[in-house]
């Protein structure tokens, strides 16, 4: 690990200002993704600003009837919150489908949203990777791409966003609250938070340098049955090949987002109109324009079948 200097932020605005004004500085929350990448020198910050002491560790009701989840609420505490379990089951389910108990105890809401891709070439500093080093090329295109994206890819990068929690947040229409270096707050809809790789795969989110996440808000509950179905190579403790987050109402209408298929949680609102027509119709529209590789072409039917399983379960209940 490269040497770095370290400080504990006194306030949110102070933290944002410090990261914006110090060259090569980063926030650190749980550290479970950042330190992992620092150990292999994929991330090489020279200054770390720890944000754990800022008090963003509460889940509060909003005046609109929703929930405001502090950026530093631990994944375990979010999944265990009685209101989340009752009204936003898809979110609890997505969180407990990811990582391990130990990791979820440490990982934070903001850090989870910002976890970086698991593309094997991103981790291998001997390989070209446009995300790690702009302009160096992409070893995954034409390489081993079984886990990588099938839709929204570019000629520069075919990596996926690997997380589970954000896929549930996408289905719930969450909003990300931030504060920037000037102390200015703003709200970013989750749909616009993660970006497609395009020609700049290094830029993964809508955040500006030094912009600090303070909370994620959920709108008031929408009822329905909540599902998070994750398909992976082992029954536990593995990243998704494909995952389906869904909220399905009694009349068969609903919302659906996919994980493991794109550089962001993948949701196409227009496709949801097809819900009463069945999973084939939904998947056809949701994955229209998919460009899988030979290695990951299986993800197209896998996504459709996983969605079919979820819709069957909803009908049976």
């Amino acid at each position, binding site marked *: 690990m490269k*040497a770095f200097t370290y400080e504990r932020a006194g306030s949110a605005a102070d933290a944002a200002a410090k990261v914006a004004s110090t060259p090569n500085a980063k926030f650190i929350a749980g550290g479970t993704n950042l330190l992992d990448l620092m150990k*292999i020198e994929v991330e090489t910050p020279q200054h770390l600003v720890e944000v754990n002491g800022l008090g963003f560790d509460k889940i509060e009701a909003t005046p609109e009837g929703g929930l405001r989840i502090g950026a530093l609420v631990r994944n375990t505490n979010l999944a265990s919150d009685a209101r989340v379990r009752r009204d936003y089951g898809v979110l609890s389910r997505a969180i407990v489908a990811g990582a391990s*108990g*130990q990791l979820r105890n440490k990982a934070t809401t903001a850090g989870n949203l910002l976890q970086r891709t698991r593309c094997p070439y991103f981790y291998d500093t001997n390989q070209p990777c446009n995300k790690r080093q702009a302009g160096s090329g992409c070893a995954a295109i034409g390489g081993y791409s079984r886990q990588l994206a099938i839709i929204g890819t570019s000629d520069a990068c075919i990596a996926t966003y690997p997380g589970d929690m954000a896929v549930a947040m996408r289905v719930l229409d969450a909003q990300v609250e931030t504060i920037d270096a000037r102390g200015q707050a703003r709200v970013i809809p989750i749909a616009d938070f993660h970006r497609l790789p395009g020609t700049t795969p290094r830029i993964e989110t809508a955040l500006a340098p030094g912009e600090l996440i303070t909370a994620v808000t959920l709108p008031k509950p929408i009822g329905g049955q909540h599902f998070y179905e994750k398909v992976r190579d082992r029954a536990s403790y*593995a990243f998704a090949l494909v995952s389906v987050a869904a909220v399905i109402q009694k009349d068969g209408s609903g919302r659906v987002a996919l994980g493991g298929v794109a550089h962001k949680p993948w949701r196409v609102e227009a496709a949801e109109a097809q819900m009463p027509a069945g999973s084939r119709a939904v998947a056809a529209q949701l994955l229209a324009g998919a460009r899988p590789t030979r290695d990951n072409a299986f993800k197209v039917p896998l996504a459709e079948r996983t969605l079919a399983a979820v819709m069957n379960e909803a009908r049976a209940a």
Partner: protein
Amino acid sequence: MPNSPEISISRRGVLAGSAASAVIAATTAGAAQRAAPATLAPLPAPAPQPMPVSLTVNGKVQRLSLDPRTTLLDALREHLHLTGTKKGCDHGQCGACTVMVEGVRINSCLSLAVMHEGDTITTIEGLGTPDKLHPMQAAFVKHDGYQCGYCTPGQICSAVAVLDEIKRGVPSHVSVSLTDHPQATNIEMRERMSGNICRCGAYSNIAEAMAEIAGENA
């Protein structure tokens, strides 16, 4: 130091390989993670400045001065010489480094010691002693919950924490209902222990040891 560096490093390499390939299944990332780093940092690295850190470990206040890069795991093993906690993968994948911080289990390899200023930490040495074993330690002995023993301190810390998490109503991936209180069933315990990998495959005996303690506390 009880471990010679050669032995601990080669063991580490072996375990890291198995854990990494288990987690990032069938990719090249396991090997990639130990590849030599390329020159990525554009600026010269700042000289490491030691920072004061105060931790309460197994009931004793410890004041240390540490390079901020020091993980909690390395602070425990290399600075406090509490070598019960093990380094398997050093990447959050195997659970050998599991300790309790403020009563909650975490991977000490993916946490910096300086992030734990003022925290209370319990390691395997603090759970029980050879003459006064923690009930979970005694149950591991009784049920043969290990072979080589390398993963065992992490398994035992995790096992104690898992029963507490079930008691506190933390849901898991296999909980049928999110709103009912989870029970310490075999399938629940196995799922919750999935962050602790055992190279020797002592899993079923570990589950039996846990079932005995869960039964006593029920």
